[in-house]
C-alpha cells in the first residue's frame, strides 16, 4: 500500500459556536505525521466536536483545517487521508442506524475509504469474535467499540481519529487494542489521535498529549516532557509556599498546617533544593486532574 508523503494536518483559529455555548474556541494546532496523540479533557470539553471538525464531519463556525496546505472542507482528496471513526451511538447518529447490520456498516466503510484493507478488517472481526450479521442495535457497547476500531484500523488513513475507542471493552480487549495500535503505528507510521477518559492506561502509547479545557487548547506537549516537569510538592504550608513561589501552581490542598500543590515547571526552570518538602513525580492522570479537576 502506498503511503502518502503528507506531513501535517493543521487547524487555525478553529471555532465552533452553538446558540447557547462555544464548544471550541480559537483552536490552533498542528498534527504531525507518524505520531500517536492522546486527546484528553473532561466531558463537554469539546474533544468530539474538535475531531468532527478535523474530519469535516461538522462545519466550523470559524477557522480552517488544512491538510498539506489544502483546506479539507469539501475536498475529497484531503478527506481520503482522514478517518474519524466515531463512537456508534444508535440514539443520536441516526435513529435508523440501529437497524443496520454490522456487516453493512463495515461494507459501507470499505466503499468510502480508498485504501481500505479488507484482509485486516476480516482478521480483526475474527479476533474480536464479532457477529457481523447482527444489527447494530443488538450489539453491546463493547462490540460497537470493536466496530469503530475495525473501521479505524482497516481504513489505513494517514490521520486516524478514535473517540473513546475502549469504552465498553474489557481489560483483555483494551490491552489488545493498545498492542494493535502500536503494531499498526510501527508498521505504517500513521498518525493516530485517541480521545479517552481512561488516561493512565493509555498514556504509555501517547507520544504527545493534547489537553482540552472548556473548548480551548490547554496544552499540547510530548508526554515524557510533560511528566518530567510535573511534580506534587507536599509539606508545611510555609515551606511549600516558599519553594513554589514564582512557579505555575495547581490543585492546592490544605490540611491543617500542611499543604500540597502540583507544580508545572516552565522551560528552563528547576526545582529549588534545600526545602523540607516531599516531592513526588506525577502520572498523566494526576497532571490532568491538577489542570482540569474541579476547582481549577
Amino acid at each position, binding site marked *: 500500500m502506498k503511503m502518502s508523503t503528507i506531513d501535517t494536518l493543521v487547524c487555525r483559529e478553529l471555532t465552533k459556536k452553538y446558540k447557547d455555548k462555544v464548544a471550541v474556541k480559537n483552536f490552533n494546532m498542528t498534527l504531525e505525521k507518524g505520531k500517536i496523540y492522546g486527546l484528553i479533557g473532561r466531558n463537554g470539553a469539546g474533544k*468530539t466536536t474538535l475531531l*468532527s471538525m478535523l*474530519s*469535516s*464531519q*461538522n*462545519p466550523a463556525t470559524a477557522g480552517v483545517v488544512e491538510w498539506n496546505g489544502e483546506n479539507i472542507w*469539501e*475536498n*475529497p*482528496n484531503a*478527506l*481520503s487521508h*482522514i*478517518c*474519524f*471513526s*466515531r463512537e456508534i*451511538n444508535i440514539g*443520536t*447518529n*441516526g*435513529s*435508523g*442506524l440501529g*437497524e*443496520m447490520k454490522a456487516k453493512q*456498516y463495515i461494507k*459501507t*466503510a470499505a*466503499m*468510502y*475509504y*480508498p485504501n481500505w484493507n479488507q484482509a485486516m478488517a476480516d482478521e480483526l472481526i475474527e479476533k474480536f469474535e464479532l457477529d457481523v450479521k447482527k444489527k447494530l442495535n443488538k450489539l453491546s457497547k463493547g462490540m460497537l467499540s470493536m466496530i469503530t476500531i475495525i*473501521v479505524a484500523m482497516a481504513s489505513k488513513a494517514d490521520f486516524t481519529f478514535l473517540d473513546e475507542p475502549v469504552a465498553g471493552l474489557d481489560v483483555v480487549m483494551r490491552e489488545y487494542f493498545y498492542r494493535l495500535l502500536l503494531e499498526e503505528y510501527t508498521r505504517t507510521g500513521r498518525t493516530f489521535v485517541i480521545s479517552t477518559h481512561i488516561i493512565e492506561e493509555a498514556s504509555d502509547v501517547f507520544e504527545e498529549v493534547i489537553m482540552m479545557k472548556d473548548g480551548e487548547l490547554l496544552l499540547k506537549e510530548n508526554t515524557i516532557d510533560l511528566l518530567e516537569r510535573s511534580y506534587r510538592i507536599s509539606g508545611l504550608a510555609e515551606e511549600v509556599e516558599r519553594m513554589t513561589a514564582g512557579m505555575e501552581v495547581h490543585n492546592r490542598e490544605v490540611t491543617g498546617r500542611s499543604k500540597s500543590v502540583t507544580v508545572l515547571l516552565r522551560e528552563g526552570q528547576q526545582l529549588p533544593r534545600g526545602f523540607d518538602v516531599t516531592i513526588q513525580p506525577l502520572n498523566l492522570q494526576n497532571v490532568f486532574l491538577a489542570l482540569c479537576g474541579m476547582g481549577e
Partner: protein
Amino acid sequence: MDRAVKKQVWERTRRYWGQMGGKMALQVILCVLVYMFFMNTSISEGSDFFISFFYQGMMGAIFMVIGPISFVNTSLPVTMTFGAGRKESLWGMQLANFSMFFLLVFFAVCSGFYYKGNSSEVTTEIAVHVLVIYGIVLLLAMDVGQIGVFVSLRFSRKGTVVYMVGAILVTMGVIVGGVLWAMRQGIGDGMNPGILLQSVRAAETVGLAAAVLLYVAGFLGLRRSLMTYEVGR
C-alpha cells in the same frame, strides 16, 4: 478535483446511493407481486388488475415520499462519517431518488400486459397518458420526500413526523382523487374524447411544471441544509 479522485467519488456514490434507490424500488415491486399472487390476480383481467394497478401506483408514490426521508436517519450520517462530502451526498440522494423511477418501468411493463388484454377499451394514446401521469405523480411524490429531508434537517423530529404523515395523506388523497375523477369522467363512457384528452394534457403540463418547480426548490433547500449538517448531532 483530481481525475482519479473524481472517479473514486463517482464510483462510491453510484455503488452506495444507486443501490439504495434500487433496493427501495425492488421492495415496492416485491410487495406488488406478493399482493397479486395472494389476490390471484391475472395480469390482463379487468377490474382485479385495475385494483392491483391502483395499489401499485399508491405504494410506489408513498415509497417515493418515504424513501428520501429515510436517508436522513441512516445513509446520510453513515456516509458522511466515512468521509463523504456534502455536495457528494446531495447528488447521491438525487441518484437514489431517481433510481426509484425503476418503478415506472415496472408499471409500464404491467400496463403493457393489461392493455394487450383490453385493447378494445384502451387506446395507445390513453396508455401513454396514464404512464406520463404516473411518472409525474412519482416525481411530485419524490419532491415531497425531498422537501421532507429538508424539513428533517432543519426542524425537530416531531416536525418531520407531522410533515411525513401529512405528505403521505396528501399523496394518497391526490391519487385517490385523481382516480375517482378519471372514473367519473368515464373513459369511453360517451364523453367527448377530444375534450377529455385536452384536460388531461393541461393537467399533465401543470403537474409537470409544479413537479419541476418543487424539485428545484427542494434541491436548493436541501443543498443549503447539508452545508450546515452535523454528523452525530
